[in-house]
Structures are given as structure tokens and as C-alpha cells.
């Protein structure tokens, strides 16, 4: 075990058996000399959007491939809907890989139909659902076009539709927004949320921390083959909060600093149009109330807000950069 493994886990999460739509339990996967996953456990709660985060080469794609049964774990198991996953569950999953594409020479409709039927839909039902999707996403005229005639964004739309067409219970999306312009990215984002509202469990792997904040209720962060962070986004952001507040006030910042004394540390301050803005980190377990009480007589407080850490910062803080990553070339992440 690496020293940092589990550092950010709450005590009640460590080794605690949890249930969810999907749970990977103690997954170990080795490629030759490279340990891709070392005892990884994640639980995806049902009906939620779950973010699977991690730097390149951390083992995300390997974990996803184990969940989608593209490859098998050396040890550990995957639970689906509360029971050990079987081959048949693959039909209940929709997987949009990061490395994705379509047959260039095949016609769009034919190809979508083919992929849908590989997922077990019969031809009639698949055709019906495809027509609905094509209407809804205004792709009606594409049916008889070859994929090579489509733009990259158009092809991505087709790809997304084929991923969700068989109405999977679990949707695994690896960098779903790449290749989309902002308009279509929004379309996809709305669609993901709509699917979530319909009860679909979504596992989202992305480097786009903005969409993590926007979409995910839960995350797990994998770094160098281990889960280093796991829990609800709200709770994690709170956990990473370092009790820093931004205080806007009118008056002298020297007076403010003096009044603050040892209750808090003045990290930085600036003055603009007669209004001072100070960043204060609470010290020695003092509370915001104490700070306000101490400073109010000296300056006129205009506003106070807590600095909630962004996922971006949490990511960087959680991922130790002390040791170089041992990633063999060729494993895409």
C-alpha cells in the first residue's frame, strides 16, 4: 500500500461494504510488470451521476474496461444491481469509450441499427427508436449518408445515440463532450441529466472539472492504481475546505488586520474604489462569528463568503505529484 492511499477517505468509508447500482470490489489488474489497478473499490449509487476522475494513466480506462467486461480482473469482483455481474448484464450497459469511432464506409442508419442489434435489440424496435432519436436531434437526413460524409460533431451525435438506444440501466461515458461544439455539448449535457432523471445510473469519466461540478453528485478519484478520493461532491468540497473566507469591507486594512489578531490569518488583501477585499484563513479553531465580532468595531463589513474549493483544485491537491507516474506507453487513459 502506498502511504497516500486512502488518505482522504473518511474512516467509515475505508473497508466499508457499500451497495449501489454498480460496485467494483477490490479490483486488482496487472499487465505484465505494470500494476494497473491495486485493490480498487468504487460504488456507484443508483440513479445518480458518478464522476470517475484521475490523471492520465491512473487506471480509469482499465477499471471501465473491467466493468464493461471487455477485460477481466486478476482478482476482485464487480457487483451489478446488488449481485455479482454476469455476461448478460452487458446488455444493460451503454458504454461510450474515449477511443470511439464508427465504420467510415457504412451508412449511418445501417450502422446504428447494427450496433443496436449487437446490444440485443430487434430490428423493428431498434429502427423505431432510432427514428425517434433522429427526429429529436434533427438528424433525419443523415440516415443514408456514409459516416465519412459527416462532420466530427455529427458522428459524435450518432455515436451517443447508439450508446443509449437500448435504454441501459448503467451508462458509462468516457469524455462524452469531446468533439462537440458548445451547442451540442449542451445538448448532450441536457440529455445526460434527462437520462439520470429517468433513473439511469451514469458513470462519467472526464478531465473537464467544470462538468464534474455541474453534473456529478458523487466522485471517485483514482491515482496511480488506487482510489485516493471517494464520496459525494458536496461532502468532498466541504472536506477540502480550509476555512478561508473572503471579506469585503470599508475602512483601513491595517485596522482590520489588527482587529483580526490571532483569530485568523490575513492571506492577502486589495483595495479597489474604497472597498477592501481580504482573504482570511481562520486559525486555532476560531469561528467566523468570532472574526466578525472582533472586526466589526474597526471596519464596516459589506460582505462575507466562504471560499469553496473548486474540483479543479481538489483534483490537483489529491493527486500527489511527488513521484513520477509509472505508466507504460500504449495504455490509453
Amino acid at each position, binding site marked *: 500500500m502506498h502511504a497516500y492511499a486512502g488518505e482522504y477517505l473518511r474512516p467509515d468509508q475505508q473497508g466499508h461494504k457499500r451497495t449501489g447500482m454498480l460496485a467494483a470490489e477490490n479490483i486488482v489488474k*496487472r*499487465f*505484465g510488470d505494470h500494476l494497473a489497478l491495486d485493490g480498487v473499490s468504487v460504488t456507484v449509487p443508483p440513479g445518480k451521476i458518478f464522476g470517475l476522475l484521475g490523471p492520465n494513466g491512473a487506471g480509469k480506462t482499465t477499471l471501465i*474496461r473491467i466493468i*464493461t467486461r*471487455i*477485460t*477481466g480482473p*486478476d482478482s476482485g469482483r464487480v457487483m451489478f444491481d446488488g449481485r455479482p455481474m454476469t455476461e448478460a448484464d*452487458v446488455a444493460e*450497459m451503454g*458504454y*461510450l*469509450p474515449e*477511443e*470511439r*469511432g*464508427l*465504420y*467510415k*464506409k*457504412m451508412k449511418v442508419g445501417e450502422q446504428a441499427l*447494427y*450496433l443496436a*442489434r*449487437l*446490444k440485443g435489440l430487434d430490428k423493428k424496435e431498434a429502427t423505431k427508436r432510432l427514428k425517434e432519436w433522429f427526429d429529436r436531434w434533427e438528424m433525419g437526413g443523415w440516415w443514408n449518408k456514409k459516416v465519412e460524409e459527416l462532420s466530427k460533431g455529427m458522428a459524435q451525435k450518432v*455515436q451517443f445515440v*447508439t*450508446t443509449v438506444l437500448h435504454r441501459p440501466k448503467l451508462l458509462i461515458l468516457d469524455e462524452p463532450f469531446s468533439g462537440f461544439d458548445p451547442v451540442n455539448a449542451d445538448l448532450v449535457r441536457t440529455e445526460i441529466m434527462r437520462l439520470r432523471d429517468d433513473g439511469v445510473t451514469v458513470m462519467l469519466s472526464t478531465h473537464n472539472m467544470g462538468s464534474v461540478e455541474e453534473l456529478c453528485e458523487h466522485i471517485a478519484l483514482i491515482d496511480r492504481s488506487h482510489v485516493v478520493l471517494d464520496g459525494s461532491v458536496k461532502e468532498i468540497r466541504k472536506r477540502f475546505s480550509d476555512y478561508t473566507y473572503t471579506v469585503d469591507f470599508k475602512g483601513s486594512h491595517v485596522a482590520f488586520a489588527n482587529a483580526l489578531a490571532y483569530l485568523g490569518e490575513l492571506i492577502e488583501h486589495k483595495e479597489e474604489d474604497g472597498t477592501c477585499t481580504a482573504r482570511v484563513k481562520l486559525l486555532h479553531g476560531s469561528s467566523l462569528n468570532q472574526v466578525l465580532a472582533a472586526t466589526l468595531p474597526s471596519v464596516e463589513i459589506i460582505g462575507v463568503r466562504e471560499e469553496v474549493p473548486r474540483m479543479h483544485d481538489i483534483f490537483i491537491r489529491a493527486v500527489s505529484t511527488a513521484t513520477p507516474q509509472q505508466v507504460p*506507453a*500504449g*495504455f*490509453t487513459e
Partner: protein
Amino acid sequence: MGKIKLIIWREFITRVRKPSFLIMTLLGPLLLIGGISLVVYLGMQENGIQNVVVIDKAHLVTNKLHDSDDIKFFYEPAEMSDSVFKASPYTTLVEVNPLILENNTVQLFYKDLPSLTVQNYISREIEKVIEAEKLRVNNVDPVTYQRIKTALKVQLFDIDKAGKRSYDQAKAGIGFAFGYLIFIFIFLYGVQVMRGVMEEKQNRVVEVLVSSVKPFQLMMGKIVGIAMVGLAQFLLWIALSVVLGTVGLSFAKDHISASALKDAQPQMTTQLQAQIDQTKAVQDQDSPNEELGVMMDILHELPIVPILVLFLFYFLCGYLLYSSLFAAVGSAVDAETDTQQFMLPIPIPLMPGLFIAQTAVYNPDGPAVFWFSIIPFTSPVVMMVRIATGNAFDHLGELFLSMGLLIATFVLTTWFAGRIYRTGILMYGKKVTWKELGKWLFYKG
């Protein structure tokens, strides 16, 4: 099972729908027949009229050689120097030395090497004159000589097939043609499997697919689908060839009998011709019919149904063996340029197979033929020769051993290929080495 059917269907239909499939189907037999015809035609063609000047130092042949349409004889009694010959309009110079009756040798000088047909014609013409002269000198009656002269025909009989003439050689040739076809098909369609796998990898569609089906299903679906394309093409070729062949044969039949009669005529000098015309006429009329009879006999004797069944077996199993290896190579490489290194060793065992099959035509019972018809990497090509001659049916144990080994080997190679394939298709941007491929075999699924 339903999924694998879908994959097979896609692989089949997307290829059969391509215009290139139709073109190949139509062009295949035409190219084959056209190619053979062209070779025969070109071989018979001469580059213009041959003017042969004969320096008749023996004073024997002058004015006795017969001109043909393309070959004209001229006679010079005296020596002609090289420079004079070079400047002359003659194309070829034949020097008949005074001692020709003893040494049976003439010397032929040329500007451009005359074809074998021309050489044979000249030599035959001179031969006839020399023969006639020898008959005269030795006081032998030409008719008597003609009766004595013997062109021995050896008819082959296999002791195990009592009382029937054996055409093993011709049948071996047919077997070789089947073996060659297998060789071509394995190569043609094996490479298609490789390209198909590479296409899926380069398109990045493969990970989407393997989230629905097992990589092994995907690989087998492709292999089987392309095999069906090959079979469809083969059946269409057979159908087309039968049609073309029937038309061609009936055309050739009229042609052969006519030309054979004509060709057989100028075998004797004119003086002799009249005397032996009667005897010859019988022979001449016989030969074309006899040839056709032999052809019919061979076709009749050829175990056509077992040949076709075993051809399908050896084609399919040989193809499965090699195409799985091609699939493994296709999965392992990223770019077309990398394929060479891994593709090259695959068809190497097929080459000696083809070579041995060729020798098998002349010596179907040799030890090399035996071994190469047992070894699975070459047996699809070599065994076809033994099957066509019927040799394989006399040694059923060997045939079954060969078939069994082939099945076992393709199961094994498919298994190996499957393991490389499932790792290879998901591997991008990595320069693959042989050592790396070896490691993939032992990754846990």
C-alpha cells in the same frame, strides 16, 4: 450466437455489396482463361516472317525444304561471312556440313533468337530430308521404314485399379490447380481479414463493439464472414467457368480436330507422303478423338465429389489457420507500415508447400510430398494433389491424420490469435515487438 451471426452477416454483406466484388467475380474467370489463352497465343506468335538461308555444303537439302506461312527457305551453296549475313535480309542462317549423314548436326546462326516453334520446324524439315537420304543410301524402302519406326507410347496402370489406364499425372495436375487455388484464396482472404481488423482498430470502432460482444466473437465473426465471401466468389467462379468452359470447349472441339489434322500432315517428304498416305490417314483421324477420349476418361475417373468436398475442407481449415494469424497481426499493429514485419513470416510455410505440390505432380508418392501433406501449414496445398490422384484414398489413415492435425492446429492458432487479438485491438500508439506479443498471450482475459 445471434451476435456472431450479425457480425458474420455484416462482414459478408459489406464486402459482397462492393463493386470490386462483382468485378472480381466477373473478371476472375475471364482473367484466368484470358491469361492462359494469351500465354498460349503469344507463345505461338512469331515476330514476323523468318527468312532462313541454308548453306548446303552437303548438297543434300537444297530445294527440298518446305516453306511454311512464316518460314521461308533460301539456299546458298557457298559460305557466307558474318558481316554479309548481318547485312542480308535473312533472319537465320543454317549451315549443313558435308558430313551431316555421319554427325547429324547442323549449325544455326541467328540475328534474333528464333522461337522454339521455328527451331523445331527447321530441324524437322532437315531431319526429313536427311532421313530420306539415309533410307536411299541404305536401300531401305520408305514404307518399310515407316512400318518399323516406333514411337513408343507408355500407358500407366496402377496395379490397385485393375485393368484401367491410369492418368495420375494429369489428375495430379488438376489437384495442383486446386492446391494453387487454396494458396491464392488463403492469401487473398487472409489479408482481407488483416485489413478488416486494422480498419476497426484505426476507426476506433472496436472498443464500441467489444462492449457488446466478446473480442473472440468479433474476430471469429470477421473470419467466418470473409470466408463466406471467398466461398461465394468461388462458387460464382465455378458457375461462370462452367458456362464459359462449355461454350469454349464446344468451340475448341471443332477447332482442334480440324487443326490437328492439318498439323499432322507435313511429317514426311512429298515423295514419301503419297506412299504412306493411307497408313497415316488412319492415325491422323484417330489422334484428336483419342485426346478428347482421354480427357473424358480423366474427368470420368476423377473423384469429383470427394475432391470438391475435401477442397472445401482444406480451403476452410487452411484459411482458418492462416486468417487467424493474419487477424492477430492486424490487431497488433497501428499503422499499415508496421504490418510488414509481422505479416512476412505468416505465408512463408505456404511457399515450400506450393513448391512441394508442384513436385508432387511428377512424383505423388515421394517422401517430401508425404510429409508436407501431413504438416498442417502446408497440407491444404499439398494434399490436394494426393486427393486428385486418388493416392490419398489409398492411404485413408494418412488423409485422416492430415485432416485431424489441420483441425487441431487451426483450433490452436485461433486460440493463440484470440489472445493476441483481444489485447492488441485496445492497444494504441505502441510499437509492438515479438516479445510483447508473447506477453499478451499470458495476460488474463
